[in-house]
């Protein structure tokens, strides 16, 4: 079982994982905002810039629509890894949408969308500060030795 958390001031649900961008040779931990409303996972500039992504090397054009309008984003094949301590790593191979840096979206956290969440069973109980995920499927399960 994976465990998430709720932000103190925002109350938003988060889960920590690792993002690997093989083509760009970037590996970084990341705290995702759990968003069942997002069709796909999205890397926002505050994380992308922290990781040192060279946006000039990105390709692809994925159109996304939010309340604020239509955006054009990059697409990059990545691995997203979550750990169940001392038991399993769960690895997902996805095409991650990467938003272009823009001052208007700097304070938004990266989103974990339904491309991954649809493979989990979530228990969401902010009243008890309980946010857990039972993993139903993953692209690769990696057992961890005791």
């Amino acid at each position: 079982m994976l465990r998430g958390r709720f932000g103190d001031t925002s109350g938003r649900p988060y889960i920590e994982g690792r993002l690997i961008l093989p083509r760009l040779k970037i590996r970084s931990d990341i705290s995702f905002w759990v968003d069942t409303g997002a069709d796909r996972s999205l890397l926002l500039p505050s994380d992308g810039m922290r990781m040192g992504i060279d946006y000039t090397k990105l390709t692809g054009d994925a159109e996304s629509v939010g309340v604020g309008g239509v955006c054009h984003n990059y697409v990059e094949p990545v691995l997203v890894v979550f750990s169940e301590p001392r038991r399993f790593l769960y690895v997902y191979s996805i095409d991650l949408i990467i938003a272009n840096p823009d001052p208007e979206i700097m304070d938004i956290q990266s989103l974990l969308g339904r491309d991954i969440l649809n493979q989990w069973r979530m228990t969401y109980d902010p009243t008890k500060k309980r946010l857990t995920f039972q993993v139903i499927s993953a692209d690769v399960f990696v057992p961890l030795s005791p």
Partner: protein
Amino acid sequence: MSIETREKAVLRQLGNPADIDRELQSFRRGAKVLSSEHPRLIDRYPKQWVAVYRGKVKAHGRTFRSVLQQIDQKGLPREHIIVRYIDKNQRTMIL
């Protein structure tokens, strides 16, 4: 590509699983400071960007770039850091 071939390709890119597990546990423990009521970061760093590493605020400032500069000047590993904007009156997000 067969499932086995794909799995092998993923495992090659993954690195050492035990290291990842250990580092993610540390990262997750550190992130808890952003969920903590004692102390609350909003009380100390209102309307500031903060960089959290191993559960402690290692840099803070009014701009994202200034916090990144501090991280680099201190030689902290960006890949294990969370950078967040702390504000009591956060924008309402409807995503």
